[in-house]
């Protein structure tokens, strides 16, 4: 398990535990995300609070999860991104595909 999960009424808070989101854990992340979606989550809020570095393999998994989520009407939000990670996501325009929030609280405000 690389995600720490907290689920409240089909809204899942998923915190990525490793500091490096990379090739070594990208597949596991993808599987855990797809399982969450398959189990009926309506919104997954992924927290990057521990992540210092993200590589292209992990970005690929993130996007695969999104592609799996979209036709099932499941939303994926990203929260608590450190500046380097956020800059990279913005540089490659991922901010246009994912909704990004400062933290869980801000993301929850948006849905309430």
């Amino acid at each position, binding site marked *: 398990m690389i995600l720490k999960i907290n689920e409240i009424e089909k809204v899942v808070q998923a915190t990525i535990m490793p500091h*490096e989101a990379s090739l070594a854990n990208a*597949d596991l992340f993808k599987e855990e995300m797809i399982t969450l979606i398959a189990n009926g989550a309506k919104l997954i809020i992924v927290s990057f609070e521990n992540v210092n*570095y993200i*590589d*292209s*393999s992990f970005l*690929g998994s993130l996007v695969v999860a999104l*592609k799996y989520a979209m036709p099932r009407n499941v939303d994926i939000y990203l929260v608590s991104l450190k500046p380097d990670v956020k*800059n990279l996501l913005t540089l*490659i325009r991922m901010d246009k595909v994912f909704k990004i929030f400062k933290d869980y609280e801000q993301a929850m405000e948006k849905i309430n």
Partner: protein
Amino acid sequence: MIAFEEAPAKLKKVLIVEDNLLFRKVISASLTKAGYQCVLCDSASEALKLLVNEQPDLILSDYDMPEMNGFDFRQAVLQNPDISDIPFVFLTSHTDNSLVLEGLNMNALDYINKETPLPVIISKLKNIINSLENEHIRSIRELRIAAETLNVKSIPTVRPQVAGYSIHFWHKGFRGYPGGDFIDFVQVDDRYCFAFLGDIMGKKWKAWFFTFGFLSYIRAAIRFCVLDNDFALDTIVQKINKLIYLDESLQNILSSLSLLLLDSQTGQIHYTGAGDLPLINYKTETRETKTILSSGLLLGLLEDGFYDKQLIQMSPGDQLAIFTDGMIDIPSDGLKKSDYPFFVTRISPYLGMPDSFELIRANVLESIDDSNQLDDSSIIFIEKL
């Protein structure tokens, strides 16, 4: 004192799982001295946690440990496809024949008795690591030969000659693997030349195999558009995007792309990007370095990738650098990070010189090696003559 042979060229990492503090220290000190990097865990559960992030070259595990014993640990490793291939050796004082057999039956490479003299243990481990390394090198060589025979190249061998421009490129695969980066040039006629660079998300072989599917689509799309006399890059990239989006075999694969069209007659460069990093553009007139951002999404992400097109006016001496994200991934204080502005500051001092690319190569690119490279790195450098 025991004289050890030369340390291997690249530091190999050994994970030692051993609950006995003294033995853990003794074995790691000997291995470190023999030129290996050691990672220590005092329990199997700690080792499993560590293996989420670490990929050692060899796991050396005790059998008798509290909570989870070595065999249960081995089973847990085997069940995780991400780490099940890591060579595994038992090192234990339990040498009952049936135990040894059980250990070896779990796909362990060896079962070493702790009573064995230390230098012999180290030699045994060294032989195991060396023979695995040789096998690995052989496999890579064979795959390379196969790929070359099939004439599938993701990086060209020679620089294209385009009137009015000087074009350089450079590529280094992650740890010497052919990876997911690709570069190509398609010369249409005396006036037009396409240049493109992309990065398939992922590393090593998996990404490399997919590059050929992508390259074929991109080359074909360019050729078709040339036949139709359609040189609008945004429509070309949108066509490529749609092909990839609809191709089920590429469903989980994404790629960035920077597509450029060099016009020798007007000195203009057309540009459309898909999830790529901003280009670096040096202007001779103002001696300023600026970045050029495109709006398009990664190829294959959504059916409509929102591609835009831009026209870069190149005056003599103006330069343009296009590169993949491996270039901006740098280790800092032992932590990995991605730093685009840092890369810009690193190459900026060499821009606007008569031999800018050679300077960048010597001062920036050649310092990229296995110890600091985190991903495939590629760059195309264009100068208007």
